[in-house]
C-alpha cells in the first residue's frame, strides 16, 4: 500500500500571483486538503492563480473535480488560472478527459509568470 500523502499550500509569488502548490497523491482520501486550499484562495481579476502541480504524482477522478472547481471559480471571478509543472502521465490523463482544453499549462512557475507579463 502506498502511503496516501498530499501537501497543499499557498504562497504569494513576488510578482503578485497566488501559487497553490499541490504535491503527492491526490485522490478520494486526500482531495479535501487541496479543496480547502482552493476554497481559501481569494480568486479575483487582480491576482492570477497558479496551481503548481510539479510535485503531484497521482490524480484520480476526485482529484480532477478539485481542478475543475478551481477552473469554475476562475471563470466566475475573471481570474487567470495556470496549471504548472504537470508530469507526463498526468498530462496524458488530463488530455484523455479533455481538461487540456480548459487549462493553460506551463512547465514552471517562472514560465507562467513570464507568460502573464507577455
Amino acid at each position, binding site marked *: 500500500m502506498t502511503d496516501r500523502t498530499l501537501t497543499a499550500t499557498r504562497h504569494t509569488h513576488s510578482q503578485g500571483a497566488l501559487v497553490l502548490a499541490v504535491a503527492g497523491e491526490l485522490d*478520494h482520501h486526500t482531495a479535501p486538503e487541496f479543496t480547502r486550499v482552493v476554497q481559501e484562495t481569494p480568486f479575483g481579476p487582480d491576482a492570477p492563480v497558479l496551481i503548481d502541480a510539479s510535485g503531484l504524482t497521482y490524480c484520480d477522478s476526485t482529484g480532477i473535480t478539485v481542478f475543475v472547481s478551481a477552473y469554475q471559480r476562475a471563470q466566475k471571478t475573471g481570474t487567470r488560472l495556470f496549471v504548472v509543472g504537470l508530469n507526463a502521465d498526468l498530462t496524458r490523463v488530463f488530455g484523455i*478527459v479533455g481538461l487540456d482544453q*480548459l487549462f493553460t499549462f506551463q512547465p514552471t512557475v517562472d514560465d507562467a509568470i513570464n507568460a502573464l507579463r507577455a
Partner: protein
Amino acid sequence: MTGVEDAFLHDVEAATAAATDERRRLAAVSRYDILDTPSDGTFDKIASLAARIFDAPMATVAIVDSDRVWFKAAHGLRDVAEIARDPDLSAPVIPHQGPYVVTDALDDPRTAGSSLVRGELGVRFYAAAPITTADGHRLGSVNVLDTRPRRPTEDQLAGLQELAALVMDQLELRLAAQHTVAAERERRADAERLARTLQRTLLPPALPTVPGLRAAAAYHTASVDEVGGDFYDLFPLDDGRWAFFLGDVCGKGAAAAALTSLTRYTLRAAAIYDPDPCTALANLDTVLKGEYQGDTPRFCTAVFGVLDAEPDGSFTVTLAGGGHPPTLAVRADGTVEPVSTAGGQLIGLLPDPHFVQTTTRLAPGDALLLYTDGLIEARTADGSMLGEEGLTRHLATRAARGAEDLLATVHGLFTDLGTGVSDDTALLALSVPPCSIPQSAQENR
C-alpha cells in the same frame, strides 16, 4: 395447607427465584464480554487506588462467573488470576446489598473456612463494593484485602463504592464502543456487499447475439474493498441497428453503483430517443448535471457507438467519446490502431462539454477493443504507466483473433501486471468473424 408445607413451598419458590436471578446475572456478565480479557490499565489503576484508599496490601476488581471469581485486575496478589467461587471471599457479595465488610475473617463464620483466610495469604480483613448494572445485576465487586483485622472508615467504604461505580461506567463504555465498532463493521460490509451485487446487476448477465458479429465482455476487479463503477452494454436499436457503450463513473462504492445505474439506463433511453452517439452523450451530460448538483459533482467517461451492418459483412461503427481513452481497432492483418475520440470531455462535470465523434469500419477479421482506464493506468514492473502505447504493443505482438481471443490476451496482460492494476477495468470486444472475403473488401479499408 399446613405451616410446614407452606414453609417448604416458600423455600422452593425462593430457590427457583434465586436460580432465575442467577441465570439473568450470568447473562449480564456475558453481555459485557469481559471475562478472560487481557489486563487493562484502567481496571489496574482502579485496583491500586482501592488499595491506596484503605492503605491495604491487596485489592481486586473481580467478576463472578458461574463457577469462579475471575480477577480483571489484581493489586498485590501475585499469580492469582481467579479463584473457585465457593467458598471464597468474593462470592458473598452476590446476595449482599451495599458494601460488604469482614473486619476479622478468622472470627467471622461467613469467611472462617475460606481458602484465602486459611491459606498462605492469611486474609483477615475484607471489604467489597458490588459492581451493579443499571438493571440491578451484580457482576462482581471491587475488593480490598488485608492480612490484619481492621475497621474501615465510612469515607473509605464510600470511596470503594465509587470505584465500583467507576468500573461499571467503564464496562458500559467498553460495551458501547464494541457495539459501535461492530455496527460500523457490519454496515460497511453490508454496503460493500450491496454495492458489489448492484454493480454485477448493472452489467448485462450475457451479451446478446448480434448477427454477423462476435462480442465478448469482461470485468476485472482490482480490489475487494472498493467497488468501481465501470459499465458496458450492447443492445438493439429500434431500427435494426445495434448500439453499445462502455464507461467509468467517478468514485467508488455504493455511490458509484447508484451513478452507474443512472448512467446505464440514461444511455439506453437516450439511444431510443436519438441514437446519434454525440447526442446520447450530451443527454447523459444533462441528466447527470440535473441529478447531482452542488459540491459533489458526479461524472463519468464513456464511449458510445452504433453498429451498421453492411451488405459485404463488414460493420460501420460510429463512435463518440467523452473523456475516454481511445478505442483500439485490431485489424485482420494484426496491426493495432487507435480509433480516437480525443478532445471529447468528461460527461456531467463541465459547463459546456465537447464530445468527439468518429467512424471506422470493421471488416471481416477486424476487432474493436473498448476498455476503461484501470487498464492503461496500471503500473508496469518498472513503475511506469502501461498507457495506450503499452496496451497497443501488447496486442500487436499477440496477434489475437476474434473478440474472445482478444479478451484472453488482455487477461494475460492483467496477470502479468498483477498488483500494478489498482482500479477496476471493464472490457468489451467486438469482432467480425473472418471469412473467405473478396480481396476488394480488404483493399477498401
